[in-house]
């Protein structure tokens, strides 16, 4: 392992022993076919994270496969540590993201003789890493026996022996081990394997999920849970496949802290469906499975929590009273009703059935954070005719709800608070946003697609809401966007702050493939002026964040990382004013 892979600029082929790590996003193309932009955004974010970790552990990103990275390490220990850290970070990222706003990745690690050529790496060792990756559990790391033997003495890994695997296009069977996804024990991944220690500390939610997975109508169960959580009805099995039951249940449980609240939510959703009776039965099955989760939680709840719960009720009543004093309380009621039911209700008789206190309680369930509330209000208002009037009312509601969210000490001025707070806590409910709110029917795919919008986009809405009393809400605020027809100033900026040739290499690598200093690459670089490359980059990277992640990843893929990062910084700085 002492041999060093050749430097980036060297054009010679060099044989070396290296630990090769290959990652791959699970069901990437399936998700791409459903939501291209959202999925691309996620993959860029994840690849950036992986590249960062790779650098941290002294590895080198050799190339991007589009939905994964090929990396090499001088040390197998570092390669495995890096892979584990990557999965850990990704799991944490997924936990803090809304359902459907994260990808799972498989990782394969192999140690073997490989050929380094330019920036690329070839050889059987790479092929084995690729095959192992395909055998890995999503969120896990599959390592070859060779890697396992090298690292087992140094790292405490809880890996499961998978036996000698027959890998496609590899002659000899390769013995491999599976490191389970972060937070899971080895047995959960490969339960059928004997001789492994059995861990039984399953949470009540995990048990509930396992129970439901065994139920015969699992597909309907999943649809109803997904529908209740996301607020959209999804029939596409390909989309549903992307979501595991357990995280969905966890999020549903977080939103509905009482069994009654959950029951109401499930039944409301079921009642809207064609197969109403069938789904009401499904709702029962779900409730039965989840009952132990709630009873256990109640058992462990301290008296203090009960007290806080009753004081919460008092606060709901206070808010209801504040709102009741408003002259326009009927419209406030309509707004609150719309937040809860995603339908616009003009019938006073229906509205009369709900007290303001009830509505406030339910809204707080749906919007556990201030950003959630603003988001939901904004979502409704933008589809109403009387934007400005309802924006005023939304502001009144936000103010009334304010004491519920955080202490006054933390409460920053409204605009900054809203725009700074990402809506990533799993409550970004998106209803068929293209449809008018009057339309009772829940949309399927359109709604889901828009639910993968970036956090940034949602928080823009909330900040717009905050300033709604100053200017109308519709349309994004037009910051001064520079004209792309005149790029002289942009080029001047780039040249002033970085080396023009490095800037060109980085941009060419971004829009084509990583620059490898071959005579052909130099010729290509000379055939494109900086101006041409900037124009192509604008076409290739539709959004600034897109550009940012692509350039950052590429900085790690082309030789001389430090200089590249500096150049990428200068390019980003210069190009930013040209993006909306």
């Amino acid at each position, binding site marked *: 392992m002492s041999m060093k892979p050749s430097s980036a*600029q060297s054009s010679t082929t060099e044989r070396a022993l290296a630990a090769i790590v290959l990652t791959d996003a699970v069901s990437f193309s399936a998700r791409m076919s459903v939501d291209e932009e959202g999925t691309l955004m996620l993959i860029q974010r994840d690849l950036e994270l992986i590249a960062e970790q790779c650098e941290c552990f002294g590895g080198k990103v050799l190339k991007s496969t589009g939905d994964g990275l090929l990396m090499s390490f001088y040390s197998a220990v570092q390669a495995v540590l890096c892979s584990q850290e990557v999965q850990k970070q990704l799991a944490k990222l997924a936990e803090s993201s809304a359902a459907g706003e994260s990808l799972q990745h498989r990782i394969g690690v192999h140690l073997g003789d490989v050929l380094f050529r330019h920036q690329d790496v070839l050889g059987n060792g790479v092929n084995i890493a690729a095959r192992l990756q395909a055998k890995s559990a999503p969120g896990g790391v599959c390592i070859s026996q060779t890697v396992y033997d090298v690292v087992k003495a140094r790292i405490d890994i809880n890996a499961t022996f998978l036996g000698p695997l027959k890998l496609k296009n590899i002659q000899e069977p390769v013995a491999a081990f599976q490191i389970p996804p972060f937070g899971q024990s080895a047995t959960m991944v490969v339960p059928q394997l004997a001789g492994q220690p059995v861990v039984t500390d399953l949470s009540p939610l995990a048990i509930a999920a396992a129970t439901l997975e065994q139920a015969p109508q699992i597909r309907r169960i999943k649809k109803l849970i997904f529908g209740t959580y996301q607020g959209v009805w999804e029939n596409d099995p390909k989309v549903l496949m992307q979501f595991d039951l357990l995280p969905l249940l966890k999020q549903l449980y977080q939103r509905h802290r009482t069994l009654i609240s959950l029951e109401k939510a499930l039944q409301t959703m079921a009642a809207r469906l064609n197969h109403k009776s069938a789904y009401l039965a499904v709702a029962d099955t779900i409730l039965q499975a989840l009952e132990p989760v709630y009873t256990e939680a109640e058992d462990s709840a301290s008296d203090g929590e009960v007290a806080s719960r009753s004081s919460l009720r008092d606060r709901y009543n206070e808010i209801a009273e504040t709102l009741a004093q408003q002259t326009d309380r009927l419209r406030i009621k309509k707004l609150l009703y719309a937040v809860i039911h995603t339908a616009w209700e003009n019938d006073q008789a229906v509205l009369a059935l709900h007290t303001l206190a009830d509505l406030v309680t339910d809204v707080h369930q749906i919007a556990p954070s201030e950003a959630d509330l603003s988001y939901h209000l904004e979502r409704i208002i933008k589809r109403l005719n009387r934007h400005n009037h309802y924006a005023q009312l939304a502001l009144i509601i936000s103010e009334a709800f304010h004491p519920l969210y955080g202490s006054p000490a933390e409460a920053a001025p409204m605009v900054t608070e809203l725009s700074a707070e990402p809506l990533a806590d799993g409550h970004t409910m998106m209803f068929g946003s293209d449809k008018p709110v009057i339309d009772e029917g829940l949309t399927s795919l359109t709604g889901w697609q828009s639910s993968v919008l970036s956090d940034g986009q949602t928080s823009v809405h909330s900040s717009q809401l905050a300033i709604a009393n100053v200017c109308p809400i519709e349309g994004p605020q037009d910051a001064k966007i520079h004209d792309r027809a*005149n790029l*002289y100033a942009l*080029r*001047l900026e780039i*040249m*002033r702050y970085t*080396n*023009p*040739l*490095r*800037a*060109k290499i980085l941009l060419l690598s971004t829009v084509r493939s990583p620059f490898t200093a071959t005579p052909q690459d130099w010729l290509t*670089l*000379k055939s494109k*002026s*900086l*101006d041409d490359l900037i124009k192509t980059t604008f076409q290739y990277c539709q959004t600034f964040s897109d550009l940012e992640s692509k350039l950052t990843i590429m900085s790690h893929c082309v030789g001389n990382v430090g200089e590249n990062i500096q150049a990428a910084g200068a390019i980003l700085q210069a190009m930013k004013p040209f993006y909306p």
Partner: protein
Amino acid sequence: MTPQDFLECYASGKRNFKGFSLAGIDLSKADIIGSNLQLANLENAIFTLAYLTRVNFRRANLARAQLAGANLNQANLTQANLSDANLHGASLQGADLRSAQLPLADLMDANLIEADLRNADMSGANLTGACLRGANFRQEDRKYIANLRGANLRQADLEGANLRGADLAYVDLSEANLANVSLQGADLHGANLQGAYLQSANLSDALMADANLEQADLTNVLANRVNLSQAHLDQALLHDIRLAEALLAETSMQDVVLTRANLNRADLSRANLTRADLTAATLVEAYLGRANLGQADLTNAVLARAEISSATFIDTVLTGTTMPDGSVHA
């Protein structure tokens, strides 16, 4: 001397390599900041992406040297021989290139901001995309002007440069930034200025016969007495341009925008102004013999004492136009 020897010398603190013979030496990516390489023979040397800040290359032979991406900021390159050198994407900000020999050099996308180019020979050089803002091309009242004959200046950024009287005949300046450039009396005949950006430039007395200025932006340009005969100006933007006494004979100006332009006493004989927008333009005493003004818009234009007797006016808009006899057209 091998590259290793050289770098060891440099590392040990030696800076003076004056007159050394180092032809073909490979110092790519090397850091030899502040070295003295005066009069050194560096023919075919390789300095790709090297750090050469403040290096003294005075009268050095750098013919055919590889300097792509090299950092030559504040370097002294006076009288250096850089003919056919590769300076692609190099940074020469504030470098002293007075009397340097750069014929056929490749300066594509090079940073020449504030470089001193007085009397430099850049004939036939490739300056595509190069940034020359604040570069010094000529000394006032002296003849020592940079030689750019036959150079390629496509997409080059020359904003604010002083190119008075420069020889730019037949050069490619397409899509170049020439805003606020002084080209007074310059020779630009046959030059390619397609899509160039010339806002507020000074083109007075310049020779631009047969030049291509299609789609160029000449808004607010000062171009009195310019010779644009037989030039191509189709779809160019010429708002507020001052073309008094200019020679525009046989010029192709279809679809040009000449709103508020000053064309007093200009010679527009046989010019093609089809669909031109001449709203509020002044053409006092202009000569429009056999000019084609078909479908042109002359709303509120002033044609007082202009010679229009043999011009074509098919479907021309003449609302509020002051006619040669002083009458205002209905």
